[in-house]
């Protein structure tokens, strides 16, 4: 029985191979310099325009390299994709190139699932990263290697209700975080019996926007090797106390996901400001009714402007054969070429994060709103340490919820979170 099952499995596999050869073996052109038969699979996430644009980029690569083929396969959300990668890696299967969120870079790199891209970056077909914004090149650095390169880069964007600002006598967006808190109070409108009709601010139910706030005010939550975890940093305590006060006063809300989250609160006129990313752009400017939306960069703090990037990147899997690795690297270079990044920025709303890609995107940046979004790039600090450690990430997320939802004592909650994170990080580091 087992033999028959195995034979069937082989038949299926051979069938796939045969179909593959029949379908793609005949087509071709002379341009490709990649080894023949070095086809690879690319696993991606992101749906809608952001997914379609990736498939178009893959199709363009295949047109340019007829001797090989990249097959793009959608694998669900970032976390679905990560679960699949981990399972497939255990069986030495899976793709050769993958899109990857920031949460799993470190864990996968340490586990030997990802290939160190540094030798490829410094090799004959290397990568010039001199025009990359901020510290983006540092994003995927682990133990001296580079295991992840940014592809779909998100930047922080503040959206605000221009009419509410005018009514409140505010001439423009807040320049500093101190202004930001003060504006949130000024923008809050109350009706009968002091009931809040519009909050000054609707907070996102994730901690990502807070990183920019903390960093620009000089706060730190952890260093990159997790030897100095400071979730109870005085800056974090001060800023979370301020946010908690806003929530208590009704000047800020933390809408849950089921009610549409912070974006629905903003779009329906229940909040005058939201801290979001460029991803909300089309939603805000097509669905906001009854008021004029506008956008700005996040405010500056004591250390000026320091912004946490978001989004995802690309990585090569360790199961890749040398032949495939050549194709995989050529494919990554294609995906983050200026033309591809510019195309992706236009289609998906992610940013053109290199100087050349911004030049290639030309018309996109003629729109002052997109120009403002891209002004955030030089201030990016590509440090995903908080994301990369489940211990730090979970402890901080829980503290955030306790402080803003359950109105817990800020200092005590952050102290407890810090202790928990330090203990859990030790286990994480030992496991690696």
């Amino acid at each position, binding site marked *: 029985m087992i033999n028959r*099952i*195995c034979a*069937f*499995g*082989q038949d*299926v*596999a051979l069938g796939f191979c045969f179909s593959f050869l029949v379908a793609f073996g005949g087509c071709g052109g002379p341009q490709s310099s990649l080894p023949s038969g070095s086809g690879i*699979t690319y*696993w991606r*996430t*992101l*749906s*809608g325009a*952001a997914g379609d644009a990736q498939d178009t980029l893959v199709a363009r690569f295949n047109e340019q390299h007829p001797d090989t083929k990249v097959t793009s*396969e*959608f*694998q*669900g*959300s*970032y976390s*679905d994709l990560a*679960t*699949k990668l*981990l*399972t*497939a890696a*255990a*069986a030495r*299967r899976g793709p050769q190139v993958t899109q990857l969120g920031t949460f799993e870079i470190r864990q996968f790199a340490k586990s030997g699932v990802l290939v160190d891209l540094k030798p490829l970056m410094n090799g004959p077909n290397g990568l010039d990263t001199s025009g990359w914004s901020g510290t983006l090149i540092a994003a995927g650095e682990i133990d001296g290697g580079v295991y992840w390169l940014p592809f779909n880069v*998100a930047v922080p964007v503040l959206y605000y209700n221009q009419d509410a600002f005018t009514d409140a006598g505010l001439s423009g967006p807040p320049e500093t975080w101190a202004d930001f808190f003060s504006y949130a109070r000024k923008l809050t409108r109350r009706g009968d019996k002091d009931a809040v009709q519009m909050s000054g601010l609707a907070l996102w139910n*994730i901690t*990502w926007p807070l990183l920019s706030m903390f960093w620009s005010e000089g706060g730190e939550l952890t260093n990159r090797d997790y030897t100095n975890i400071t979730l109870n940093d005085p800056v974090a305590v001060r800023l979370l106390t301020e946010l908690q006060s806003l929530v208590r006063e009704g000047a800020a809300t933390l809408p849950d996901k089921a009610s*549409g*989250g912070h*974006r*629905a*609160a903003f*779009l*329906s*006129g*229940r909040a005058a400001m939201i801290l979001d*990313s460029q*991803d*909300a752009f*089309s*939603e805000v400017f*097509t*669905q906001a*009714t009854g008021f004029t939306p506008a956008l700005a960069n996040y405010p500056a703090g004591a250390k000026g402007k320091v912004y946490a990037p*978001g*989004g995802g990147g690309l990585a090569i899997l360790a199961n890749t054969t040398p032949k495939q690795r050549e194709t995989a690297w050529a494919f990554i270079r294609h995906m983050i070429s200026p033309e591809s990044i510019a195309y992706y920025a236009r289609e998906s709303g992610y940013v053109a994060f290199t100087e050349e890609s911004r030049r290639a995107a030309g018309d996109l940046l003629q729109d002052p709103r997109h120009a403002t979004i891209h002004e955030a790039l030089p201030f990016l600090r590509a440090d995903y340490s908080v994301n990369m450690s489940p211990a730090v990430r979970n402890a901080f997320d829980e503290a955030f919820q306790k402080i803003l939802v359950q109105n817990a004592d800020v200092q005590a909650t952050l102290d407890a979170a810090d202790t928990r994170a330090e203990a859990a990080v030790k286990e994480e580091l030992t496991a690696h």
Partner: protein
Amino acid sequence: MGSSVAAHVGHTRKNPLTTAAVYASLLAACMLLGLPFFWMVVTSLKSPHELAGYPPSWWPESLRWGNYIDAWRSAPFGRMYVNSLITGLAATALQVGLALLMAYAFAFIRFPARRFWLLLVLATMMIPDEMKLVPNYLTLSRLDWINTYWALIVPPAAHAFPVFVFYQQFRMLPSALIDAAKADGAGHGRILWRVVLPMSRPVLVAVTLVSFLGRWNDFLWPLIVTDTATMRTLPVGLAYLKKQAEEGASPWHLMMAAALFIVIPIVILYSILQKQFVEGITKGAIKG
């Protein structure tokens, strides 16, 4: 005893206040349970602009039937329907068939350490599916079954819950009937098919429906063991519509439209088998 119950029931029906209270409670329960379904239908017909509206509207400004077309085109749902039907039916048939044989053996055949083996089978219910993910994947990978129907049909077929339910049902059957069938010279297959199954029909229907529902709605396993859209099932198709938290709000109107055409076959199936399903579910409750 029977006549006194009948008299009591008759008396209850004649009291208009009690009857009204019962109907009001039932109506309230129906509305409560039907509300999510109603909301799904209403949301599926709204415009994206209405989704963000506050307070939320109970009825769309205009019925946007085009949402269903847009949702259908967002993923290869036609192919996914076929995949869901094939794998759902096959896995259910296999799961129910295996469970029937196992439950029959545990209930009617004497063999060494029977109770131990039964407990061992039931103990597998305590292992979370997520823990079996990697070992099962490795096995399928070695068989080269990843991204094939086999991966979607065979592993889910081994499930202890239907075994448990059938075993409980078989134990309640009068042993005299089984003995009589044996005395008439019937073998195990004949007893199962001609005696046990006809007497367990409501339970069989209930277990079949629950098993099919489990397969039809399963997301994680089909996502893990399939790589291409052509092999995927309907719940995975929904993920094609869902956006990341940092990508913006998901198109809930399209997601609800897609959810509706995923749910409809189950609603039809349940409507057809409702009577036997309820009988099967309540049978255990009545007889203990």
